[in-house]
């Protein structure tokens, strides 16, 4: 078993306009991840699928963390 920790952050959103595809002409705010390699990752505490809190800093000194933000994964939620 690899010692690095894989933490998946799954964020699938219910399409709010399921019946109509998103028009291409809307204004999109430019988004770019504000962080860069070498930065300290902001700490967070989130609820897992087993309703337990998972805190990033709990892995400090113990495990590497792979954080995957996964949108539109069709979880239905």
């Amino acid at each position, binding site marked *: 078993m*690899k*010692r*690095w920790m*894989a*933490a*998946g*952050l*799954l*964020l*699938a*959103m219910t399409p*709010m*306009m399921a019946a109509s595809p*998103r*028009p291409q002409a*809307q*204004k*999109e*705010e430019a*988004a*770019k*991840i*504000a*962080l*860069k*390699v*070498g*930065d*300290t*990752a*902001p*700490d*967070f505490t*989130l*609820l*897992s*699928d*087993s*309703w*337990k809190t*998972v805190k*990033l*800093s709990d*892995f*400090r*000194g*113990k*495990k*590497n*963390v*792979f*954080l*995957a*933000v*996964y*949108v539109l*994964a069709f*979880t*239905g*939620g």
Partner: protein
Amino acid sequence: MDSPAANAAFAKQIGVTFPLLSDMNKKMLTAYGILKGYDVQSENYQWALRANIVIDKNGVIQHIEEGDSAVDPNTAVSVCTKLHGKEESK
């Protein structure tokens, strides 16, 4: 954003071995700058970007991928493997 209950159902369906986290109030997404706003019918909706981020044991970000390139986890996995290798050789 999905609730823990929706994630639990999905976790069971696909048999994951790692925690699926919920950011219902968008705290983490906001802190990491991953939210993207879309104006639709005079309302603003926020979706998250797809992203892979590798954070080492010291809490330092070692790898960031966003958008389409983040669909493939292989690069991030290789970063994890390299990190693990460095620790082993110490």
